């Protein structure tokens, strides 16, 4: 009984051992990070000051941290969604990349600039979503047709997408801006103003864009779909026992296709937000690291959408702070990866003790 209550009441869930273990792992990893900073003979207070400055030091850095968290949250929510069907989407990186490419292509050359009603940015966003969904669906098709493990296929698709991005910004036939001289950078033109995402405050010193409310709505909708709808139940059934689910009339192929396509679509949307909301110019490597951070946020959340958002915020601020530490206090941002890797490893190991919990 007590187990049921702790699993289904909000308070019991908030204080569950798994949350406590997650917090302990994050804390331990952060302490190791501080120890490393100390070993690097950088002043720890200086590093911490630089870290805080990069996260909440100014309205700009606060908004930038939240924007970063949005991308992580979308990829993480997609991971959790597909993982409900026991699918592991590790292709966030590539899905972001194709989303960014599609959004840029439509914003620059789709003739959307003069359309009414927000269409100038909504259509590029739609293109990003479709591109990401397509990238996810490839992995689903391979899984359904050939039984290919989606971990491998989504990873390989990520590498392919990253080089596709490189190609599109290197080739003038694709998205590279016209070469006027030999110093022209390998990047796209800046997208037209009308295609940039509207800012919530309209003020560039606090560049929080409409991606935030959209992401919140998506999180709530998908949370409800997973917890309260027939489809959520079907996902879970396929995840727990595909053979039994199939006997109960749930199509395995359809479930795999939808869940991986949704995960991919969210990755694509994250790429679209990054491009149309912050970067405005498509560059090689713009997605670098985002997919993996989102993946880790999804892994840490243990199936909970609220957990994804918490982890995404944590990593968004960790990254922003880490970047500022590198610029100001000369602590390489790679430190953030060390901390993340430690968190994932500790939590993977901790699952053993959680499972054995009596009751």
């Amino acid at each position, binding site marked *: 009984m007590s187990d049921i209550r702790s699993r289904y009441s909000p308070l019991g869930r908030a204080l569950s051992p798994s949350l406590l273990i997650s917090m302990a792992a994050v804390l331990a990893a952060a302490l190791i990070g501080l120890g490393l900073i100390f070993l690097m003979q950088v002043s720890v207070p200086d590093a911490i000051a630089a870290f805080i400055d990069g996260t909440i030091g100014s309205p700009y850095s606060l908004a930038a941290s939240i924007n970063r968290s949005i991308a992580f949250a979308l990829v993480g929510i997609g991971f959790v969604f597909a993982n409900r069907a026991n699918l592991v989407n590790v292709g966030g990186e590539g899905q972001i990349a194709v989303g960014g490419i599609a959004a840029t292509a439509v914003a620059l050359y789709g003739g959307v600039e003069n359309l009414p009603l927000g269409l100038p940015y909504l259509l590029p966003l739609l293109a990003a979503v479709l591109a990401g969904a397509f990238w996810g669906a490839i992995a689903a098709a391979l899984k359904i047709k050939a039984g290919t493990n989606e971990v491998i296929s989504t990873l*390989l698709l990520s*590498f392919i997408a990253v080089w596709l991005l490189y190609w599109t910004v290197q080739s003038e036939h694709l998205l590279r801006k016209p070469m006027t001289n030999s110093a022209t950078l390998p990047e796209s033109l800046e997208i037209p103003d009308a295609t940039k995402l509207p800012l919530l405050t309209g003020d560039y010193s606090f560049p929080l864009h409409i991606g935030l409310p959209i992401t919140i709505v998506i999180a709530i909708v998908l949370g409800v779909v997973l917890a309260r709808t027939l489809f959520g139940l079907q996902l879970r059934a396929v995840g727990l026992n595909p053979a039994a689910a199939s006997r109960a009339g749930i199509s395995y192929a359809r479930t795999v296709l939808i869940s991986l396509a949704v995960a991919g679509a969210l990755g694509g949307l994250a790429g679209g937000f990054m491009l149309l909301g912050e970067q405005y110019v498509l560059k090689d490597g713009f997605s670098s690291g985002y997919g993996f951070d989102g993946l880790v946020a999804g892994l840490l959340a243990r199936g909970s959408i609220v957990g994804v958002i918490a982890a995404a915020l944590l990593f968004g601020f960790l990254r922003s702070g880490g970047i500022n530490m590198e610029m100001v206090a000369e602590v390489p941002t790679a430190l953030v990866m060390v901390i*993340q*890797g430690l968190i994932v490893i500790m939590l993977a190991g901790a699952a053993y003790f959680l499972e054995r919990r009596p009751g």
Partner: protein
Amino acid sequence: MTWEVLAVFLGSSLRLATPLLLAGVGELVSERAGVLNMSVEGMMLTGAFAAAIGSWATGQPLIGLGIGIIAVIPVALIQAVLSNTLRANQIVTGIGINILVLGATTLGYRELIGARSRTEIPGLSMWSPPGLGRIPVFGDALFEQVWLLYAGLAIIAITALVLRYTSFGIAIHAAGAEPRAVDKSGLSVSFIRYCCVLFTGFMSSLGGAFLSIGDIHTFTEGMTRGAGYLAIASVIFGKWKIGGTILACLLFGAATALQFQLPTLGIDVPNALLIMLPYLLALLAVGGLAGRQTAPRALGEPFRR
């Protein structure tokens, strides 16, 4: 295509395939025993980094190689403990290790070498088999290679023999197919899997060291660039057979070599497409081009007594 060009192409294919061959055969052994070892990428990067640092600090590439092998042991142990003793999700563990290693080696490189980056690191010497090296045209271009390549081929041959003809090889196979039966016969599934993961670590560190102190004589951040994942793909492509895995690695090596060869032949193919080619081939391969897949039955499942 002249003979010279062909010889250079074959030589560079073999050279570029070597890190994949070493790591791929290592991964094959783990997977045969039932452990899907996603941390190959991290293990290779560890080997590449530690070997480069060791060689740079001591001036002795051989000592560097030894340090590379030693440095991978803790990484392999983390993977082994988590995936066997703690029965953690093997994929999550592997990805965690890869992130940790990428961060740690980047950090270590910046701290240790950073300011002196682009320093040439003493590398392993070249060797060509007696006789073969004197073949006209092909002798130099194809057979004169870093000695680690030949040592690696020898280890791979021994691995193939052990897998096929020894009782331990059969036990490895059984641990991945019928772990319960292995347990009933009195052998320890856990022990077999620990050994196999450590072996994967050893082979991956050789592969990584080949990249840094064998091939290009320097270390760059994240220099494995997905080679570990290609190694995993080669195992799938090769249908969990050693011969197939080797062929897949050679194919990926040849695909990589094309990016350097085609431009010299004046064939204009977008560079990005060529860099993408091994991954594209790997995707086609795991996507059923190689036929229906026959993974070890207990692959990826922690064994519970």
